[in-house]
């Protein structure tokens, strides 16, 4: 599996993402600069956290119109796995690949902490290696992770099992329905505020995040194997 980690000016979790895939997963991975226009040849796309373009205007608003974004949207439409973490989630929201928007954290604090997440949906290609309702430890680091959507969107997410992760215990940022991560209807675009790439090695305090990347790899192997044999 060949993975692209998109790098915007102001990305700061790109190296963590790179090493989670290279060392944690043992798979091929490249940095792809935001001004590139093609993602041909990549099997999975990672949009890392950080402060792209200094969070000017709104988090993710300016990155959404970077040169690479048409290729990201194309990859998403082709069914390739696209993972947006933190600022990457915000960019996916701004790009309309996922519904809703981010508000400032309820108590206005930038929160950098280990939190417990509940795996609400373990039937996605990102979460197959977790148990349903499993509690996992993944760090968060954000000032604008207060997920907002209207009632109709929330019902749509709930009815279709598109809420993948919720905060377990205290909700750190005021997000609607304790949402920490959601997926698109096709099941190949996941956005989440917590950082699985920062929990990809026990030395970092938790290895719970590694299974997310392993799930993507397993799914990719199964789907490419099916393609060869069909």
């Amino acid at each position, binding site marked *: 599996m060949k993975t692209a980690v998109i790098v915007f000016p102001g990305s700061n979790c790109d190296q963590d993402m790179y090493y989670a895939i290279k060392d944690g997963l043992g798979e091929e991975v490249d940095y792809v600069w935001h001004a590139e226009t093609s993602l041909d040849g990549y099997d999975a796309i990672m949009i890392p956290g950080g402060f792209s373009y200094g969070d000017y205007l709104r988090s993710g608003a300016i990155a959404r*119109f970077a040169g690479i974004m048409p290729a990201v949207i194309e990859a998403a439409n082709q069914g390739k796995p696209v993972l947006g973490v933190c600022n990457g989630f915000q960019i996916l929201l701004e790009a309309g690949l996922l519904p809703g*928007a981010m*508000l400032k*954290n*309820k108590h206005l604090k930038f929160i950098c902490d280990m939190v417990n997440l509940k795996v609400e949906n373990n039937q996605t290609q990102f979460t197959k290696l977790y148990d349903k309702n499993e509690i996992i430890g993944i760090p968060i680091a954000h000032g604008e992770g*207060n997920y907002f959507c*209207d009632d109709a969107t929330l019902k749509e997410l709930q009815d279709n099992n598109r809420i993948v992760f919720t905060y377990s215990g205290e909700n750190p940022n005021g997000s609607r329905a304790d949402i920490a991560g959601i997926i698109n209807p096709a099941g190949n675009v996941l956005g989440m505020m917590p950082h699985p790439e920062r929990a990809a090695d026990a030395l970092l305090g938790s290895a719970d995040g590694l299974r997310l990347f392993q799930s993507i790899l397993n799914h990719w192997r199964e789907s490419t194997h099916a393609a060869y044999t069909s």
Partner: protein
Amino acid sequence: MKKVKVYITLKESVLDPQGQAVMQSLHNMDYKNVKDVRIGKYIELQMEDSADVATQVDTVCDKLLANTVIENYRYEIEEDVHS
């Protein structure tokens, strides 16, 4: 040239934690009669004259300047007398 004044506000259904913090501060200053604070953005654009300036402003507001999931916008188009 035209000067376009764009006002971006949070939708009424959206909580404004910044506004709430500012209101608390105003209350601490003894302005207890302040009942709500909502913080928005003000953006000025200078645009060359063309027939479809309003259409263009609508488009850039919808696509970039505002996030219509959480924000409303309105704008005024004026002659830019300084250019």
